[in-house]
């Protein structure tokens, strides 16, 4: 994307209404950015160049005629390829998924909502197969690389939405998060990603991974942009019985409460050092400085200790593995080799748990919810590391031991609980790799989570940093 093009949805919206840009210009700019980085970065599984320009022209004509669909009008977005879009098939980056898993030519409700709000869908972004596992070079799909260091992974499973955001291939995007798949790529790629309260956004039209964990969430440059997207995405859908009927807020307007002032907000902090196997040398100072900024914004910072941490991390893995193994029977019995190594290994893990194990996990999960609810009467928000290490090297990732490759990642806990949690960039390692914290809040208080992220980002500019495109790299080894 050219340096003079708007970087955020908020800026682009202002420019569109001021007449200093058009939706066509925005779409052309992100397409040019994608051309600069692709295919080296592995952002897209499909690009909708022609239909995106046609939609942009319609958006421009509507604005000229006085028809304004709101803040996403004319804004180019990417969509993770496990979420259905009208433009083409959804693959889940898999050789196994049947084309008729959903109605051809039909948007998932969350995509339809964005499109009705004027958004322009520019393509389907890469993922891990079925949103689980790790890159697999033996399969005919792109390896998603990190724009800050292409020998490293972009994170996953919303891999292409994460690296595409950082590369400027769209101004916002959809990911899904079952154990951290929005927050991880957001952290590794230096952008902002929100796992909304479980059920806040319907997941109908989305290929399932873990029924009681999955959530569709926005990735964007800023918390403010995430707020704009969530306001459109949120709300129940009858096809998703787990979608929530709680009233949908105007999350962007909620940011203006205090306009960056967090006075009166109590933030609990747990650095999770006792559960962290490895930490980048830069991390302690980055974490501490981030807390200083929140304190300077008016928040009261106190130490807390996350309850049942190991148990809830175990529960996330057990639940995701059990639910996904059920979904993938009988395909994993008959088409084992068609699956990627990381995905099929994870599904096999799901067959090693018993039914009582699954139920017991859900019982402890309830205890965890109650314990966390009690803690969140003492504080309003909780800040933890997203990961204490930056994106891993692709060559060092071990698909059969995923949690070893991601030993510094701390996203799983919050997935078990369902609380809204946002990853916010807080700086760079000595090697220039992005790092991030998570901000978590009470269920359906997504607005306060967004407000804290916005307050931090009004005082910092890490979320606006952009990697520099370079000539295509030589092929890089990837574990298979």
């Amino acid at each position: 994307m050219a340096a003079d093009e708007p970087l955020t949805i908020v800026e682009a919206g202002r420019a569109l209404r001021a007449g200093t840009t058009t939706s066509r210009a925005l779409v052309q700019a992100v397409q040019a950015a994608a051309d600069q980085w692709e295919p080296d970065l592995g952002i897209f599984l499909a690009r909708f160049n022609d239909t995106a320009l046609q939609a942009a022209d319609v958006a421009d004509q509507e604005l000229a005629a006085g028809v304004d669909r709101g803040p996403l009008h004319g804004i180019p977005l990417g969509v993770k390829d496990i979420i259905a879009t009208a433009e083409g098939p959804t693959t889940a980056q898999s050789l196994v998924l049947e084309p008729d898993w959903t109605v051809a030519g039909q948007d998932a409700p969350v995509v339809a909502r964005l499109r009705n709000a004027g958004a322009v869908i520019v393509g389907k972004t890469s993922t891990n197969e079925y949103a689980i596992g790790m890159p697999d070079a033996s399969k005919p799909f792109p390896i998603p690389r990190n724009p800050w260091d292409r020998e490293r992974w972009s994170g996953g499973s919303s891999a292409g939405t994460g690296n595409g955001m950082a590369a400027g291939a769209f101004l916002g995007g959809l990911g899904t998060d079952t154990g951290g798949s929005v927050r991880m790529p957001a952290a590794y790629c230096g952008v902002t990603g929100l796992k909304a309260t479980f059920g806040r956004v319907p997941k109908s039209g989305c290929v399932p991974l873990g029924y009681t964990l999955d959530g569709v969430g926005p990735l964007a440059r800023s918390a403010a942009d995430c707020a704009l997207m969530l306001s459109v995405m949120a709300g129940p859908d009858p096809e998703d019985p787990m979608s929530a009927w709680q009233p949908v807020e105007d999350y962007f307007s909620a940011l203006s409460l205090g306009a960056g002032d967090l006075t009166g907000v109590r933030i609990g902090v747990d650095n999770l050092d006792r559960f962290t196997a490895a930490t980048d040398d830069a991390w302690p100072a980055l974490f501490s400085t981030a807390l200083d900024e929140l304190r300077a914004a008016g928040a009261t910072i106190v130490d807390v200790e996350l309850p049942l941490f190991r148990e809830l991390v175990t529960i996330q893995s057990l639940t995701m593995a059990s639910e996904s193994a059920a979904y993938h029977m009988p395909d994993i019995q008959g088409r084992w080799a068609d699956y990627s190594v990381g995905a099929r290994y994870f599904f096999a893990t799901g067959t090693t748990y018993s039914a009582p194990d699954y139920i017991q996990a859900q019982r402890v999960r309830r205890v965890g919810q109650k314990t966390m609810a009690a803690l969140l009467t003492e504080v309003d928000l909780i800040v933890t590391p997203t990961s204490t290490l930056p994106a891993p090297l692709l060559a060092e990732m071990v698909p059969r031991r995923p949690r070893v490759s991601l030993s510094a990642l701390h996203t799983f806990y919050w997935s078990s609980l369902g609380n809204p949690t946002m990853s916010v960039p807080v700086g760079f390692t000595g090697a220039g790799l992005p790092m991030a914290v998570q901000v978590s809040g009470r269920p359906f208080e997504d607005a306060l989570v967004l407000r804290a992220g916005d307050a931090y980002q009004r005082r910092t500019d890490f979320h606006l940093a952009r990697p520099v495109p370079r000539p295509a790299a030589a092929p890089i080894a990837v574990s298979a």
Partner: protein
Amino acid sequence: MSQTPDSEAIVSALLTMAGLSIFDDEKAALVGGFAANRAAVDALYKVPEVRYEVPALTWSSVV
């Protein structure tokens, strides 16, 4: 975590019961991680507060 002698037999039986035929190196990885994984799951049965708790699942008679 030390490997229990029965891990291979247990994992083999579970995979057979699930109807899965997987590659030897993948099975070896599953066997290698089984004891630690099992210990983590067993710990869930030792959370005191869970004794009279209902699972975090909802079910409705209405579809």
